[in-house]
């Protein structure tokens, strides 16, 4: 089956289980500005078709590699990579998270808020030094896989390889095993933190990118999704996002990182909100309109007064990240997924 993407005209074959027609938006490959084009009419034509993330319709080309042949990656290499990511993801936090917390320390007006931030910074420093999880909630492992379409995974099952990496990593790094086998009946701990939640997407190229997010339950429980109507517009989205953070209050371990999905449909908008959380903290959406909305939402959220740990203060969120996607004429889906200040995630490209 061949599909033509509505917003950029990309033609792609749709294979069973592989959402080829949408991946270049959801994963942002080919996200480049429209500068550097000589022909103005060509530029305008392309800008007209620019998608909500500011990506132009030029084909992305994966990670900049080109390959003549299919590349083979053994499943055991994937297991090893996931294992190594799990070993460090909850102990060594992304430097931009630490930098954002240090900025928060300078900006926070409340003495109790500053005290909470000082302890958090000290805790995160010790976590890296001792290679001990910063937070006891080392999460359910959410694993994003961007699989180059010229890659052949051989020597085993991809999902089993990911679970093997999680199993070994969570055991050897002394992480908490926080997964139960059935949500309703029995709720018996699987004792090895498997299965992971895997988001597999095909991308151009011959690389395999793995991002492990150790997603804790406290902030995750404060997520929300609404199917707004188009008439609600920017105002409706703004009210929903701010209200969601207000309701979360101290529960999500503020200062939080607010992941927002807008557009798509019911399941896609939730995925977008989650994906927004793996963007480096504070990096703006490349589309200036969405970047401005991110800053506006951050100001409004920090005006709620919740503050670090909910003790009252001027820094409730470290960042707001929005990911958007085209949607149906009848719809305006919006989703909020929160990350606590620990926000552990780590990436490797094979």
């Amino acid at each position: 089956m061949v599909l033509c993407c509505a917003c950029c005209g990309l033609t792609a074959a749709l294979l069973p289980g592989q959402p080829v027609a949408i991946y270049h938006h959801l994963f942002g490959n080919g996200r480049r500005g429209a500068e550097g084009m000589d022909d103005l009419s060509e530029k305008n034509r392309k800008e007209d078709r620019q998608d909500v993330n500011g990506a132009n319709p030029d084909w992305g080309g994966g990670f900049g590699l080109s390959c003549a042949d299919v590349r083979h990656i053994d499943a055991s290499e994937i297991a090893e990579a996931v294992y190594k990511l799990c070993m460090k993801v909850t102990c060594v936090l992304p430097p931009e998270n630490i930098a954002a917390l240090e900025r928060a320390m300078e900006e926070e007006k409340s003495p109790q808020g500053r005290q909470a931030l000082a302890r958090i910074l000290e805790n995160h420093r010790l976590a890296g030094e001792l290679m001990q999880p910063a937070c006891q909630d080392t999460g359910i492992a959410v694993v994003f896989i961007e699989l180059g379409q010229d890659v052949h995974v051989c020597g085993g099952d991809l999902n089993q390889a990911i679970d093997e990496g999680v199993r070994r990593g969570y055991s050897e790094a002394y992480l908490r095993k926080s997964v139960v086998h059935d949500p309703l009946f029995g709720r018996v701990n699987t004792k090895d933190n498997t299965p992971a939640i895997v988001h597999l997407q095909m991308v151009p190229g011959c690389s395999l990118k793995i991002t492990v997010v150790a997603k804790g339950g406290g902030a995750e429980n404060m997520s929300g999704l609404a199917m707004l109507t188009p008439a609600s517009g920017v105002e409706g989205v703004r009210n929903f996002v701010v209200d969601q953070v207000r309701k979360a209050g101290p529960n999500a371990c503020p200062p939080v990182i607010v992941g927002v999905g807008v557009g798509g449909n019911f399941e896609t908008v939730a995925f977008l909100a989650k994906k927004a959380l793996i963007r480096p903290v504070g990096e703006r959406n490349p589309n200036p309109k969405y970047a401005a909305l991110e800053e506006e939402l951050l100001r409004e959220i920090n005006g709620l007064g919740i503050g670090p740990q909910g003790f009252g203060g001027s820094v409730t969120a470290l960042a707001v990240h929005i990911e958007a996607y085209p949607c149906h004429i009848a719809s305006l889906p919006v989703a909020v997924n929160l990350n606590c200040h620990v926000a552990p995630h780590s990436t490797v490209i094979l």
Partner: protein
Amino acid sequence: MTIKIETPLSDSVVSSLRAGDEVSVSGVMYIARDAAHKRLVSLIESGEALPFDPRGQIIYYAGPTPPKPGQVIGSVGPTTSGRMDPYTIPLLELGLKGMIGKGYRSAAVRKGLIEHRAVYFAAIGGAGVLAGQCMKSAKPIAYEELGPEALWRVEAEDFPAFVVYDAYGGDLYEEGTSKYRVC
């Protein structure tokens, strides 16, 4: 100024605490979260004895990471307390005097704190390494098959926490937020 308190908590200590107070807690505490609470309350409902006497005690809502060799306990920051709301009143009725966690409690629990003269504290969510370093001993005393949800007895030394809901209806979350709210 930090107020040093020791467990078990007496009525006079509980009565002296106010929302917003910073405390450091020393002495025995019990660590329990969702699944352990479900079992504790089911024992109470069937009239059976609990694995520990809750009179005057503090329950710390947490589920630690496994200890590394040589450690007393792993990382052990607080978990979200609201999930334990449905199990809290029966424990307060048996004399529980304190709970440490993070986040909001229900109106029923806040009322229960006033009626039973008890207090709810918040520890710093996400600061699991520092919390673990305050534990001088730690031992699972029941429900080990629940893994991270086992019931633990720990001895804390200068464990830092803030009084969120006191025994008079004081509410640090509300007071703090209203002070810094600008919209």
